Every structure is written in C-alpha cells, then in structure tokens.
C-alpha cells in the first residue's frame, strides 16, 4: 500500500489534489481513496488531506500516520508543524518552495522533490492555488502515476466543476511543474515534536464538562484558553505602521478581526504579530495610509 499525506493551507486545494491523485491512480488501474482531515479548518489555516493507493481493495479507513509520500503545499508549514512526523525512511517528499532539496530541513533525511508551484500557479491560473502544479511534481518525483493519467484526472475533476478553460489551465500548470521539478535529498536536523494536547479519558472529565480558567499539563483550558493558538503563522503579508502619520482615530483597532492591534495609553496602536493573520483590513480602513501591508509573514 502506498500512503500519501498532504499538508496545505485552507484554500490552496489540498483536498482537490488528494482526490485528483486518487482518481489518476484509479485510471492507472489501482484501487485508491482520498479524504480530508475533518476539523474546523478555515481559510489560511493549516490543513491535511490523505490518499491511499493499492493494487487490491483498500479496507483501512484511518488517517495516514506513516506516509510513503509527503506533499507540502506551503513551505511555511515546515516551521510551524512537524509535517514529516511518522514518515517512512524510504519515503519521498514533494515540497512547494523556491529552494533546492538540499537546502531544506524536513526533520528526516529522505528523497525530496521541490518545485516553485506558487509562481507556476500564478502564471497559469492567476491565483496561488497550487494543487495542480504540485501534482505535476508528484508525477515526476514518484512515477506512481503517469503524467497522462494525471492529465486525464485533472480534466475530469476540474473540467466538470469549472469548465474546459480551467481544466486546460490546470493541465498547463501541472506540465510546467513536471518540467521544473528538482529532485534531490533533504536534510534531517529539525526535531519533530508533536504539539501537546489535552486528551482526557471520560473519567478525567470534570462534571458537566464545564471548565474553569486554568491549565492542565501546561495546556491552557477553559475561558480565554484559546489564546494559546498563535494564529500569526497563517500570515502571508504583514502590516507596517508609520507612527508619524497616525491620527489616532482607532479605526484599525476597532476593525481588526483578531484583536491583535493593541491600543496604547495615548491612542497610538501596536501589533501583537503572534496573532495577526495578515488580512489587510487595518491598511484599508486607515484614513491617512499610515499602515501598509508588506509581503511575507515576518515579524
């Protein structure tokens, strides 16, 4: 059995990519299935999708914990999640990045293919939806499905949903990615630590499951506990504040969905970038253009 795990961000098309890969495998004559991680995923949040390919009927229905193939649709995920956790030693990884394979540190030394799928997607689809470009790289890196079957699967999936022109654009993106993919070996220095979670058994649950503010095993629980989720990792653009220009109208403070804009004593503001998702509303509502958005999720 060949198991695949996709890591992406909500809106990049990880689920569609998993389904398309499975369909391509079926066209090749294999058995396959694909499904997303079912959680409260919103646009921009880290998401997962899974696929399995086998030459006999697949009876296992669980998530993929030990992938043969790891596909990462957004390079920034490497820094915030142990994406390579559980990967097989002879596994392969396909990463969307500008870097070469040997410059990457996955936390496990495996064969690795890299492709700048974002720029390909922007060129062919005019949107940073990288799923089809990454599939072209998958075809080259693994050879488990041929490029012909992949094209057929893309045409089936995307043509039906978005029309002929969209299908052709996506096939173009996959073909370009197939050409541009670089294959090598990545480094394995990064520690792969799982996030701590509080998962109680039924007899450890408090009465009525009501929780008061506090922490259990150093994990915050109860009212206000969700502030341990540092949503700043979702950011792809960062606000820059020009204090000289600011007229202290506080519109940005009111309009920030995250509440990450903090109000100072004198009504100037500052940002808690641990939470900023980079939506750009503050820059848009500012009447004197004291805020601009600069590319990148830097601090």
């Amino acid at each position, binding site marked *: 059995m060949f198991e695949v795990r996709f890591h992406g961000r*909500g*809106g990049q098309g990880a689920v569609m990519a998993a389904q398309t890969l499975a369909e391509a495998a079926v066209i090749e004559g294999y058995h396959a299935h694909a499904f997303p991680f079912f959680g*409260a995923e*919103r*646009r*921009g*949040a880290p998401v997962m999708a899974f696929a399995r390919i086998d030459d006999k009927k697949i009876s296992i229905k669980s998530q993929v914990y030990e992938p043969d193939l790891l596909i990462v649709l957004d390079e920034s995920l490497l820094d915030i999640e142990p994406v390579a956790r559980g990967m097989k030693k002879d596994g392969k990884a396909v990463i969307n990045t500008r870097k070469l394979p040997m410059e990457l540190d996955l936390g496990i030394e495996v064969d690795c293919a890299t492709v700048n799928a974002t720029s390909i997607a922007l060129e062919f689809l005019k949107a940073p939806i990288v799923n089809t470009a990454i599939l072209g790289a998958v075809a080259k890196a693994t050879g488990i499905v041929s490029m012909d079957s992949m094209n057929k699967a893309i045409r089936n999936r995307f043509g039906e949903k978005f029309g002929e022109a969209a299908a052709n654009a996506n096939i173009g993106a996959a073909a370009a990615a197939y050409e541009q993919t670089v294959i090598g070996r990545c480094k394995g220095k990064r520690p792969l630590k799982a996030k701590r979670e*509080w998962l*109680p058994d039924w007899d450890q649950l408090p009465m009525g*499951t009501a*929780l008061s*503010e506090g922490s*259990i095993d150093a994990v*915050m*629980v*109860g*009212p*206000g*506990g*969700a*502030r*341990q*989720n*540092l*949503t700043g990792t*979702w*950011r792809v653009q960062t606000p820059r504040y020009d204090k000289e220009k600011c007229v202290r*109208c*506080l*519109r940005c*403070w*009111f*309009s*920030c*969905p*995250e*509440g*990450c804009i*903090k*109000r100072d004593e004198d*009504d100037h503001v500052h940002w*808690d970038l*641990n*939470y900023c*998702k*980079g*939506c*750009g*509303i503050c*820059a*848009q*509502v500012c009447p004197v253009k004291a805020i601009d*958005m600069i590319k990148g999720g830097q601090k």
Partner: protein
Amino acid sequence: MNEEMSTIKDMPTNDMFTSGHGACAGCGMAIAVKNIMRILGENTTVYVPASCLIVISAMYPTSNFRTPYLYTAFENTGAVISGMKAAQRRRGISSTVVGLAGDGGTFDIGLQALSGAAERNEDVLYVCLDNEGYMNTGIQRSGATPFGAWTTTSPVGKVVAGKREFKKDLMAIVAAHDPVYAASLSIAHFNDFVKKVEKAKNKKGFRFLHVMTPCVPGWRSDTSMTVEISRLAVETGMWTLYELEDGEARTTYRPRTMLPVTDYLKLQGRFRHMGNDDIAKLQEWLCRKWYLHYGSEVEQPVCAVFEKPRPMRQSEEDHLHFV
C-alpha cells in the same frame, strides 16, 4: 465605566473575546463579536448556537470568551438565553445574557425560539450576526441570502443564476413583537455601532441587534475589503441603519446619495455572474426599500431606475409607520 459609551474612544481596551480564534483572515463576524464583547464587558454570559462562531472560538477544552459560555443546539437561542436568565434570576446573579446567533439560526431555524423570547419580553440580548448564508457548513442559501447571490444551493446554471428570492425582512418580524430595543448595525459605522450596543446593554427587556458581517470565503471577496463592503452596503441601500425604541423607528444614518448597487456587487465574487436584467431587478427592489426606510425624509428622486417617484402602495405606508 459609569458614563455611557458613544464613540470608539470610550470603549474599554480589555478584550473579552481574545485573540487566537480560528476565523478566516478578514472575518467580519469576528470584528462584530470582538467589539460587542468589549462593550458588554466582564459581567456577561454568552450563548452561541451551532454556527461559525462556535467552531472558531470554542473548541473544547478552550474558548476565546473570557466570560461564562454555553452552547447547545442550533434552533433554540431564544429559548436557551431565556432559561439562562431565569436561572440567574433564581440564584441572584445579575449579568447581561447575550445570545450570538448566525443568520441561519435566526432567520430560518431559530425563528420560533426568537419569536417566543421576544413575545415573553425576556430580559436578554439577542444578536443576529448576518453573513447571509450557512457559511459554516459550506455556503448554503438561507433566508438572509440576497437576490442573485451564488451559494452551493442556489447555483449558477444556464436557466437560473443564483438565488431567485429577495432577502427576508427580519427586522420587520422582530418589530412586530414590539421589543424594548432593536437596531441594525454595521461594522463600518463605528460610533453608531458603539452607541447601539451600549444602549442595548443598558436596557431591560428583550433587545435585538442585527449586524451585517461580511464573509470572505462565502462572499468571494478580498480579505482586506470586509469593512469597505459593509460601508458600501449602507451607501447602496443593501443595508440600512436604524433603531427601534419603544415602538418608534429612527434612522441613525442616511447616505447623502444612493450609490448604484453595482458598486457593492462588483467587490464580491458571489454576484459576478449577474446579468443586467437581474441587476435592474435588484436595483428596483432596493429603490423600493430605500423609500420605505427613508421615504419621508428624502428629496426625490433618489433612484436611478425610477425616473419619477413611484406612488407608494397603502400597505407600504402602513409598513413605514413601524419600520
């Protein structure tokens, strides 16, 4: 704070709805909830039915509300907040009980519980966060979805393009219950927002707030345009700002001129397919709504579609009296 809040500057700085929630970047609902919670303050008890808000802010064992928080099923916001208030009364606790429901949980599924609570004049605050669809479950049409909008259950095909029905006038239904206070809010009219929430907080009896909360993935809009879309909704007449106090309606903001509805539509992908006929139909509906709300105070003509002011029907005049 003893003095009544009336502008942004009067708002307290401590957040009762903390950062770290899982809403999409640019979520209009998060803006509304964060500011409502700032104004209501510490002494508040929150109820949320099934909606985006519960998913983004209260995944067990944590929550983003630093206040007591409860949730049960989708359809019973009105009933549950009534019960919470009754329990607090019995135990001698005095706090603002607020139900933060979505438009599906208010317009469609929760309507009977809302009506019941309003009719009994329960001492609760009901907030409808209106993102014009069932966005949490993947963008399905609701009674609040406007005419022409694409959703997964009002798809765009060769014959029918988008939703064929107009938005339900929920405020008129609430107004028919003669509540102590009801108001429509926009996240782009900051001081108006603060004043209305403050007013609702200080009154006793059934209070209703209706907030328009743009939804980035559901409306197919840019993350940075959330507040701008809310502002344009008011300027084009898609949203009207008024309050209803002890049976009397008062417009709190009237745009100087009515902008064409296309200014509002073009920022949102859910309207991209709309043809001229549909836009004209929507504009005509808007003009009628505009006269209904601003009729008595407006210099004619306001609407590009009507060359001369249309005489209002008797039933509309009756309606005007109330809303």
